[in-house]
């Protein structure tokens, strides 16, 4: 029988305090931005009555979607019983919780009335997909929290798998809910597509895996406990498959829109004439976030490379932000069609492409959310034994030594 995995907490390492200070700085900037917007109103942001959801929502939804994907490694270990992934389950669960917390913080702090958070938690309209999401997020926190606890507590082994399965189902529901916030907006030509749900699931699997790889690799490097290159490559290839799935669902969604004359206007806008949105779509999402990572991870005769996985992870995250910007802001920038085939004008910017320039406050709030997530991870790694003491291939993968022979 293999030796039990030994875990350790961290409280030092290269750039440990510098990392803490940097994260604290971003959080302070985010807090200042929140207070400023709260005091003056949303007029100081770039958001308007046309672009009602802006950069904060891009950050918030990225973090929420990535949270579900960060749980990939734990799910593969518990649900699909892959032994090499099991030692990384704890950090996988904690990262998922932290990303969700950061995303929700941004979402809540951008509300017009953030002081009414208690109303959002206690007053439900059960027909609202938004309200379902509040339940899905709270449930995710509770289930994944319990799942992480079972992994760390003695004598709780038997609960790990059932909770892992519940968490796996719950996270699919969560991302379905997040995608449906947009997919069920029947009034807007840029949304109104049930495929948004599976698209968001694929996005979560890909973005979350990228975030997980970067966090674990960075921590391993800073603490001198390097993640094994075989394991990195395995996770990288898996991320590549998820990135390919994102491209697939994106293609089907866009083809479907092109086919329906009703949606042709918004489709032409995103694909060809939408300036920043067109550039972000083709260069940001498709090239940087899709094609390049696939080349890095699947080009034949290139061999395995840990650094290529790192680069692909960074590209997928950049592409992910671009994709969410195009979906969220681009979908609103294209004018709402009330009278098909007619030219429309008014004092309320009917019929014109809405312009949006994100303010520094929105960027600070969004980055503050990312910093909240990362700081939670660092504090959790200090307080609990989350990472295996040895993350080399030989220690993680019971088959590694056999294969090496």
């Amino acid at each position, binding site marked *: 029988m293999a030796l039990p995995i030994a875990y350790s907490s961290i409280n030092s390492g290269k750039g440990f305090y510098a990392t803490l200070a940097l994260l604290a700085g971003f959080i302070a900037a985010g807090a200042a931005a929140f207070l400023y917007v709260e005091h*003056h*109103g949303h*007029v100081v942001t770039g958001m308007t009555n046309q672009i009602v959801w802006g950069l904060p929502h891009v950050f918030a939804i990225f973090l929420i979607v990535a949270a579900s994907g960060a749980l990939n490694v734990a799910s593969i270990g518990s649900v699909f019983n892959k032994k090499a992934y099991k030692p990384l389950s704890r950090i996988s669960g904690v990262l998922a919780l932290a990303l969700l917390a950061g995303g929700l913080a941004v979402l809540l702090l951008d*509300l*017009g009335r953030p002081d*009414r958070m208690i109303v959002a938690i206690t007053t439900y309209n059960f027909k*609202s997909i*938004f309200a379902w999401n509040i339940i899905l997020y709270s449930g995710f926190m509770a289930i994944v929290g319990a799942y992480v606890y079972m992994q760390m507590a003695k004598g709780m082994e038997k609960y790990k798998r059932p909770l892992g399965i519940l968490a796996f189902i719950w996270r699919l529901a969560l991302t379905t809910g997040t995608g449906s916030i947009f997919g069920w907006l029947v*009034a807007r030509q840029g949304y109104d597509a049930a495929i948004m749900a599976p698209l968001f699931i694929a996005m979560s699997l890909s973005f979350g895996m990228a975030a997980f790889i970067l966090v674990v690799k960075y921590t391993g490097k800073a603490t001198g406990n390097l993640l094994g290159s075989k394991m990195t490559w395995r996770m990288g290839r898996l991320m590549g498959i998820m990135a390919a799935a994102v491209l697939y669902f994106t293609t089907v969604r866009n083809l479907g829109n092109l086919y329906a004359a009703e949606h042709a206007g918004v489709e032409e806008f995103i694909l060809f004439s939408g300036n920043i949105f067109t550039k972000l779509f083709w260069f940001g999402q498709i090239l940087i976030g899709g094609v390049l990572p696939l080349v890095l991870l699947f080009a034949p005769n290139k061999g395995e490379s840990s650094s290529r996985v790192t680069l692909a992870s960074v590209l997928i995250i950049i592409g992910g932000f671009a994709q969410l910007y195009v979906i969220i802001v681009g979908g609103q920038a294209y004018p709402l069609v009330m009278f098909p085939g007619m030219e429309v004008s008014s*004092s309320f910017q009917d019929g014109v492409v809405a312009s949006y320039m994100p303010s520094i406050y929105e960027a600070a709030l969004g980055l503050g959310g990312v910093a909240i997530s990362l700081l939670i991870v660092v504090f959790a790694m200090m307080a609990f034994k989350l990472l295996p003491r040895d993350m080399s291939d030989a220690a993680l993968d019971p088959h590694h030594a056999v294969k090496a022979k």
Partner: protein
Amino acid sequence: MSNISLKDQYINKTRRDFLKKAGAGVTTAMLASGITLMAYPDPALAREPNEGVDPTKRWGLLIDVNKCTEDCNECVTACSQENGWKLDGNPAVDSQWIRKLKIKNPKTGFEQTFPVMCQHCANPPCVDVCPTGASFKRADGIVLVDKHICIGCRYCMMACPYKARSFVHEPLEDQKSHAPRGKGTVESCTLCVHRVDRGDQPACVDRCATKGHGALMFGDLNDPKSEIAKTLATYATKQIRADLGLDTGVRYQNL
């Protein structure tokens, strides 16, 4: 009305008397530091405050596009004056409860103008998506926002097919006591619910009639004897984006 006890009627009467005696404007009393009790003068209502909304009614508007002239903006001005919102030089963020829309057929050059406001749908998407239930539909069909539970998430603005809603982006001053608004909350046309409840018609309808256009008609869609219901039964009318199946309370004639 018959359900109201004599005691309640007495309380209502004495309350109104008190308010009348208190004179014009808002009555305020400081209860403690920072806590102010405000009471608003309450002229004789068509409906008593403790009387429920009549669910047999469905208030609606009929807009005759042929009678609406391009250079006239009186309905918008009337709404702004009545409800206290105004265009303040920043049209991207200023609230607009009602706006004049101009549509042009690019192939024929045919043009029309008409006002668009909250369409007071029977199946309102804004009410469906609102996470807290702040967006709600009254029993008589008027769609409103409860400013006390709106958290300012703006999902209703994403869901509205008519761009009828505005988000209050800036601190407010000089609010009308009958049309409370709130920074950080969403608002839209209330169909002048305060006027409807006292038996009047919305300000835009009044003003359009006063100016001699008579392009706007207000009434109970459910009452076959009402002028609006008779007109709807006689002439072809349209709902904007009828394909969505929302059953709007605002209808258009000659559109």
